């Protein structure tokens, strides 16, 4: 028996002059398909987007309604997200502010559909993106929305990046697998994306590995990766928490600039009241898996309505103030397995009354359309008690 050459010269290939062209070599050095790919192709070619309807005017880009997420643990059921609702409009920056354990990261993961299930269970609610519910749509369709329409930047860039692949390869992974672009084009786009996020000498560094970058540069790589498919909504989960202040300022600047340049909406998840004040348009404050206050940034800082927001703002040390004794909120955030009855904040609240221990307050609109607080007492009543 003889070995047959494969593919057999007379089989499979078209018997035309084309067969004489050089074989396609997969690799970074390949520039054969430059014809359709221009330097700005990543931004100008019509992307093969999933067919998600554009939000018609008046509709929110992302509309989360009464989302509930539970975790089954050995100690019991942890109610981490307890019916939260918020929305984001195209081009705006929404900050979700909360301390550790408030459920802010789980909310983001539920929106993207990257929760580990089990132990997590989405118990209810809707995540409407352009009118379609991400929670009930087919997995295949959801996969098209995720990454292409909604992308995420994670907190810890070092563990979110794969240490054994060059950064350029990772940045364009989605482009290669979703759009099937050639590796040479992918490399060119990786350089473009690295330029976009202001990584110096991008062309030289595209083949470097994550460990060869500093913390700030790694976070830029993460952002480039998230932007590769040019999403309409970027979710950034504590993007600067692990960074030094001077680098943090660079990254927040970059996110704000890119958001405006690319006309994205941005959801910024953070615990840092300083960062929020700098970039957010609107703020959603979370406590124990619930939304306790919603307002635009100036109103929230100028006239916080919920006692928790008030306490939080008062407990931030200020650079320009050297006061005697910081205000502090007594106690600690509740364990999600044993959330207090009634208002979850009542054990720590200086205004708490009997009704707070029994009835859970609903998120009620205060005055204007986009301003709400989940407290039994309107802000004027709290002011009066404070005085």
């Amino acid at each position, binding site marked *: 028996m003889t070995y047959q050459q494969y593919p057999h010269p007379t089989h499979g290939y078209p018997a035309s002059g084309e067969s004489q062209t050089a074989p396609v070599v997969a690799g970074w050095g390949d520039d054969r398909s430059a014809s359709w790919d221009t330097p700005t192709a990543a931004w100008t070619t019509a992307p093969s987007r999933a067919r998600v309807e554009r939000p018609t005017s008046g509709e929110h880009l992302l509309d989360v309604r009464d989302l509930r997420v539970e975790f089954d643990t050995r100690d019991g059921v942890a109610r981490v997200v307890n019916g939260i609702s918020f929305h984001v409009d195209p081009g705006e920056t929404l900050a979700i502010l909360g301390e550790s354990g408030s459920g802010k990261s789980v909310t983001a993961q539920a929106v993207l559909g990257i929760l580990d299930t089990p132990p997590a269970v989405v118990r209810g609610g809707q995540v409407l993106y352009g009118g379609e519910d991400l929670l009930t749509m087919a997995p295949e369709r959801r996969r098209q929305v995720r990454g292409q329409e909604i992308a995420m930047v994670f907190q810890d860039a070092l563990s979110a990046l794969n240490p054994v692949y060059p950064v350029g390869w990772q940045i364009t992974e989605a482009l290669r697998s979703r759009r099937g672009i050639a590796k040479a084009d992918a490399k060119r786009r990786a350089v473009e994306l690295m330029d976009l996020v202001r990584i110096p000498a991008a062309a030289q560094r595209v083949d470097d590995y994550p460990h060869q970058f500093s913390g700030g540069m790694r976070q830029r790589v993460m952002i480039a990766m998230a932007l590769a498919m040019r999403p309409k909504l970027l979710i950034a989960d504590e993007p600067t928490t692990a960074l030094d202040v001077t680098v*943090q300022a660079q990254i927040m600047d970059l996110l704000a600039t890119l958001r405006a340049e690319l006309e994205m909406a941005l959801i910024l998840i953070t615990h840092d009241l300083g960062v929020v*004040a*700098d970039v957010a348009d609107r703020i959603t404050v979370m406590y124990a898996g619930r939304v306790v206050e919603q307002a635009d940034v100036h109103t929230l800082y100028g006239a916080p309505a919920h006692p928790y927001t008030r306490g*939080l703002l008062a407990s931030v*040390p200020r*650079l320009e103030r050297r006061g005697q004794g910081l205000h502090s909120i007594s106690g600690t*955030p509740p364990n999600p397995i044993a959330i207090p009855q009634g208002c979850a904040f009542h054990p720590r609240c200086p205004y708490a009354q009997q009704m707070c221990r029994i009835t859970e307050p609903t998120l009620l609109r205060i005055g204007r359309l986009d301003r709400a607080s989940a407290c039994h007492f309107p802000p004027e009543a709290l002011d009066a008690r404070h005085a």
Partner: protein
Amino acid sequence: MPVMPEPILRVENAVKHYPINRGLLLPKKVGAVKAVDGVSFELRPGETLGLVGESGCGKSTLAKLLMRLETPTAGRAYLKGHDLFRMRAGDLRRLRRSMQMVMQDPYTSLNPRMTVADIVGEPFDIHPEAAPKGNRDMAVRELLEQVGLGPEHANRYPHQFSGGQRQRIGIARALALRPEVIICDEPVSALDVSVQAQVVNLLERLQDELGLAYIFIAHDLSVVRHISDRIAVMYLGRIVETGTADQVYLRPTHPYTQALLSAVPVPDPTARARRQIIRLSGDVPSPADPPSGCRFRTRCWKAQPRCASEEPPLSQRAVDPHPSACHYAELHQVIA
């Protein structure tokens, strides 16, 4: 002007270089990571010295040197007149009673298999001569009370506590031997804002009650401002500016201090338009190969040829009476 009390801790030219070795069989020293490279300061009884700087500037290494958890390469450090860096193990152990440490991470710095009473009482096992005569449980209970924990917490294990409570346990342990100096290495960085304020207030109260001196290491400049009497700003293993809190925060003269202060996010959206952030380009250079002359010159917008050739000493500059290591020190107010 009041007479300054004698410093309780005096550090002179502390140096810590970590060797970089190459070669498997015959390792050869090919260089050194200059983590701390000539740091001098004084700490007086009852005061708080804030040590700030970005990651990699050597502030945590300095803390470890002072506790002698690392062996210094050179320099001297006098604690109550005794040289910490040249002391034998037995004497060192006795002297360590005067200086204790609160660690950054309350999750890994407590032994998960020990009860709170064991953790807080362990210093008494190590230093039996300092242990309370008679009832040790009583002493532990008093320590817990001092940091705001109840006697019912004594028999629980660390995992049953929240981050803020664990940090209180760490503080109780540091207090056990009645030290005069406590080194706090990022004691509130791992805590939530609302809990962070509780721990900062606790540290301030204990200082008033017990007359403690703190070396407070943090990267959060707002917290440091709040708690510190004096500040030292570090960059790449050196102190670049030092002075009272008001001098450093309100009248900074070193460009690095100015950039650092300007970058701190302000929790006030109305300040957005007013704020002028000095944007530093690039990252901190490697401490294995620091720039010649002024170490900050590679990121400095004022750098001149002189900065590359001549290292600026940390000395009083004409613009404001506090030490700053810049040839071209000038006043630039960053905080409104």
